[in-house]
């Protein structure tokens, strides 16, 4: 059952080949078997999953169930889940049990999907390797000596290892696409505002966006359709109808214009990753697409701008964790200042503290114009690059990451080397555009990803192109050995 797509599982449930309870028990058994080694989940909610599965089976029996009813899924531990610990992989929230569900959780629960548990991640979504989690790093199921990517490494690894057919994730600078690439699964970061951020613990509010990770573009289409939509509780949520992403998956891509930014194929890109991406582009041309050379001349500003804006917003967002109202509190504070300082210093990990310090520096008196304002101007230039590109092409494509998965500790002492891991994904967040990664080959036995960047709200077109490519390529169907 774990090899089947969501659409196939939905058919199986309706044909009574298996029940949601049997499906849920099957995936819970896989979690019990493989998660102790992979560490992809922080919390397993087996008991409540079986209750939800029984409720789904009743709905399916009545014949009025949603397409996703009875399908198991995992939520990234950044989404608040009522009654279930939501830690953001931080000691700071180790004891936090939200009294409410995030809108994404609520939307997916309304379809009848069955939550199996919460996935591991980089602490407060700050990282590209999952090594910053308070609960220990997630291992890449393709090679357990290597990182799964981050910050949604637990979600990507869990889907790759077939511990769940689907997982939610979030993407602030590449946190859906980069782990999807390194784990050989599909993931889409929608347009900013397409998916509600309500109940999603904030990292950098002008960049954060939730989305799904699954085996295929088709599965992502089904999930995104249920996750997306206007939410009055999120003031950045966009009030715009959600298309039927599934309906256009089989549209022809004849005549589609694909922009290939030359800046995404320059030095720093592993030649083997470049070849895998080029091979996919050749196939897309054979399917009728036209490849167009384009330039995104301000691409080099993406990483510097991001590492001003994201830490600046993080330093403000994380100011709420003060040891007073909720979260970790230090022992025996001697005064109020000591309570704040020690609670935050003991509760946050090193990378989170580093980003708070950087953000504080960029926002401090005398530096605001030189850093934050300058970064927001660079952001406008980056958006303008894309706007001009989309006058000429329908979709932009390139590599998701510069290299395949790297070994644990390889970039631990050098934050800048780690930050450059997201060199191709960050611009999309800065511009607020939708981005997607799908597997496009193996390098040294581990997967690499093809990135698709669409125009605003063009998720349906991106999913269509990705689905068409997956109809004629094998990469999305491969799974790690030893996890049968």
């Amino acid at each position: 059952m774990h090899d089947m797509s969501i659409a196939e599982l939905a058919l199986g449930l309706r044909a009574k080949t298996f029940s949601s309870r049997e499906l849920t028990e099957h995936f819970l058994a896989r979690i019990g078997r493989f998660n102790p080694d992979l560490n992809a989940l922080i919390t397993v909610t087996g008991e409540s999953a079986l209750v939800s599965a029984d409720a789904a089976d009743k709905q399916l029996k009545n014949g009025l169930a949603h397409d996703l009813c009875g399908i198991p899924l995992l939520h990234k531990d950044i989404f608040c889940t009522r009654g279930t610990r939501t830690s953001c992989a931080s000691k700071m929230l180790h004891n936090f049990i939200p009294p409410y569900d995030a809108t994404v959780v609520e939307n997916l629960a309304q379809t009848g999907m069955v939550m199996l548990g919460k996935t591991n991640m980089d602490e407060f979504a700050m990282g590209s390797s999952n090594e910053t989690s308070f609960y220990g790093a997630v291992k890449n199921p393709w090679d357990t000596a290597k990182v799964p990517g981050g910050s949604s490494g637990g979600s990507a690894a869990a889907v790759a290892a077939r511990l769940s057919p689907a997982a939610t994730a979030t993407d602030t600078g590449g946190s859906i696409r980069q782990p999807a690439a390194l784990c050989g699964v599909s993931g889409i970061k929608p347009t900013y505002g397409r998916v509600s951020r309500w109940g999603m613990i904030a990292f950098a509010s002008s960049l954060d966006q939730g989305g799904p990770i699954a085996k295929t573009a088709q599965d992502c289409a089904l999930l995104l359709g249920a996750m997306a939509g206007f939410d009055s509780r999120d003031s950045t949520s966009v009030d715009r109808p959600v298309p039927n992403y599934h309906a256009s998956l089989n549209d022809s891509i004849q005549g589609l214009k694909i922009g290939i930014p030359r800046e995404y194929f320059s030095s720093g890109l592993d030649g083997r990753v470049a070849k895998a991406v080029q091979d996919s582009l050749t196939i897309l041309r054979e399917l009728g697409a036209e490849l167009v050379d384009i330039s995104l001349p301000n691409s080099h500003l993406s990483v510097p701008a991001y590492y001003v804006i994201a830490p600046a917003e993080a330093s403000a967002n994380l100011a709420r964790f003060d040891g007073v109202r909720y979260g970790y509190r230090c022992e025996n504070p001697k005064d109020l200042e000591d309570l704040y300082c020690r609670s935050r210093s003991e509760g946050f990990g090193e990378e989170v503290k580093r980003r708070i310090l950087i953000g504080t520096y960029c926002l401090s008196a005398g530096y605001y114009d030189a850093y934050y304002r300058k970064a927001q101007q660079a952001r406008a230039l980056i958006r303008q690059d894309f706007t001009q590109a989309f006058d000429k092409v329908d979709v932009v494509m390139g590599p998701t990451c510069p290299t395949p998965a790297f070994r644990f500790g390889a970039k631990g002492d050098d934050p800048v080397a780690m930050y450059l891991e997201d060199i191709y994904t960050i611009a999309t967040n800065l511009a607020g555009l939708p981005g997607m990664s799908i597997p496009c080959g193996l390098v040294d036995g581990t997967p690499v990803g093809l990135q698709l960047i669409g125009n605003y709200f063009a998720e349906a077109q991106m999913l269509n192109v990705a689905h068409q490519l997956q109809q004629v390529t094998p990469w999305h169907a491969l799974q790690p050995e030893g996890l049968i």
Partner: protein
Amino acid sequence: MTLKYTDIERLAMLSRLAVNETDYSAVCARLESVLALVDQLQAADTAGVQPMAHPLNASQALRADRITEFNQQQAFEILSDNTHEGLYLVPKVID
């Protein structure tokens, strides 16, 4: 960009984070490497460019001025270590 001890002290104070004196040089080195990265922005010609406030140029949504939240005091109290008669009990840190 070179950071001094006093810069780290000031940043730590503003961030309400404690940085041990023994860690100052390591913290300094890592922050300097990140600031060297972001300093690449200074070479960009941004004259006359309006800073981007929102990808879709959206303005702040407004809602009707009416109460939509209901009292969940008991649910929220569960999150606290210690409560008494509707009050949150916290360590005595102010004399």
